[in-house]
C-alpha cells in the first residue's frame, strides 16, 4: 500500500489551517533566532528539523541569547512539552501499524496535529493511520519550511526584531484561553499564579520557570491526594 495522490490531497486539504499557522510562526522563529542568538540560519533550521517543538524553540531563543546552561534549556524544554504528555495515550490503542510509522506519529505529535487527528474522520476507504501520518508530516514540513525561510530572510535583510519575542507571550496567552474554556474551574490557575508570584518574590527572576513549576506541581499533587484524585 502506498500514499496515493488522493490520500495526499485529502490530508493536505484538512491541514491547511495548521499550515497557515505553522509557516508564519516558523518564519518568526527563524527570524528571531538569527537576530537574537547570533548563530547562522543552519542552526535555526537544524533546531526545527530535530527538535520540532514550537514553544520550546521560542523559549530557547531567549535562553540561548542569555547564555543559559544546557541543563536549564533541556529542563525547560521537557517541562514545556510535558504539559501535553497525557494526551497522546488515548491514541496508542488506535494506531495499529509498523513500529517505524508509530515512531514518526509520536515524534510529530503536536497540539494542533492532535486536535486535527481527534476531531476528523478519514475519508472512506483510506487507511486511518496513514492519514494521520500524512497530516502530522505535512505540519512538520510547514514548520521546518517556515523556519528555514525566516532564518534565510533574517540573514539577507536587516530587520528590527525588537518585540518579535512577544510571539511566545501571545502563543501562551492563546493556549491559556483555550485551557480556561476547557477547565472552567479557577482553582488551578489561581494556584499557579500564587506559586509564580511567591517564586518571584522569594527567588527573583533567575530560574523562575523551573522553581515555580516545581512548587505548583507539588501543590497540585498534594491537593489531588487530599481530594482522592476526584
Amino acid at each position: 500500500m502506498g500514499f496515493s495522490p488522493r490520500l495526499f490531497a485529502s490530508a493536505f486539504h484538512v491541514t491547511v489551517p495548521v499550515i497557515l499557522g505553522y509557516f508564519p510562526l516558523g518564519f518568526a522563529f527563524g527570524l528571531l533566532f538569527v537576530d537574537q542568538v547570533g548563530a547562522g540560519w543552519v542552526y535555526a533550521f537544524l533546531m526545527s528539523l530535530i527538535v520540532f517543538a514550537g514553544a520550546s524553540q521560542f523559549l530557547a531563543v531567549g535562553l540561548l541569547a542569555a547564555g543559559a546552561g544546557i541543563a536549564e534549556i533541556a529542563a525547560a524544554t521537557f517541562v514545556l512539552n510535558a504539559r501535553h504528555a497525557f494526551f497522546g495515550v488515548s491514541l496508542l490503542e488506535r494506531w495499529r501499524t509498523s513500529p517505524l510509522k508509530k515512531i514518526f506519529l509520536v515524534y510529530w505529535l503536536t497540539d494542533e496535529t492532535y486536535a486535527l487527528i481527534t476531531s476528523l474522520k478519514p475519508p472512506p476507504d483510506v487507511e486511518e493511520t496513514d492519514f494521520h501520518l500524512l497530516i502530522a508530516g505535512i505540519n512538520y514540513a510547514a514548520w521546518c519550511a517556515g523556519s528555514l525561510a525566516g532564518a534565510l530572510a533574517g540573514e539577507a535583510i536587516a530587520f528590527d526584531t525588537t518585540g518579535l519575542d512577544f510571539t511566545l507571550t501571545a502563543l501562551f496567552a492563546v493556549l491559556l484561553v483555550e485551557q480556561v474554556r476547557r477547565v472552567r474551574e479557577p482553582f488551578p490557575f489561581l494556584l499557579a499564579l500564587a506559586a509564580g508570584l511567591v517564586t518571584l518574590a522569594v527567588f527573583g527572576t533567575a530560574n523562575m520557570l523551573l522553581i515555580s513549576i516545581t512548587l505548583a506541581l507539588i501543590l497540585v499533587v498534594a491537593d489531588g491526594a487530599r481530594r482522592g484524585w476526584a
Partner: protein
Amino acid sequence: MNGYILSAILAMAAATVVSRAAPFLFLGRWAAHPAVRFLGKATPPVILTLLVLYCLKGVSPTVPPYGLPEAVALALTVGLHLQWRNALVSIGAGTGVYMALVQSGIMSAVI
C-alpha cells in the same frame, strides 16, 4: 559558541523525545488511573499560567512605559481569541501591535 548552540539543540531534542515517548512507554497501563487522569487535567492550566507569567517577568509596573505595551497587546490577543478563536490572527495581531508600540516608543512619549 557554535558548540554551545549545537549541544543545546541536541539536549532539547533528547528532552522532547523523552517527553513525547514517555507517556506511550510508561503511561499506557496507568492511563485509566484516577491520579493520572487528575494530573492530566490539572497540569496544563498550571503550566500555561506560569508560562504567561514567565514571559511577563521582565515587565516593571513602576518604570515607564509601566508595562502598557504588554497590557495593550495582551488584551488585544485575548480579546481577538475570545471573539474568533483563530490562533494565527490572535498571535499575529498581538505581536504586530506590540512591535509597533515598543519600536515607535509611542507609549513612553504619550506618558
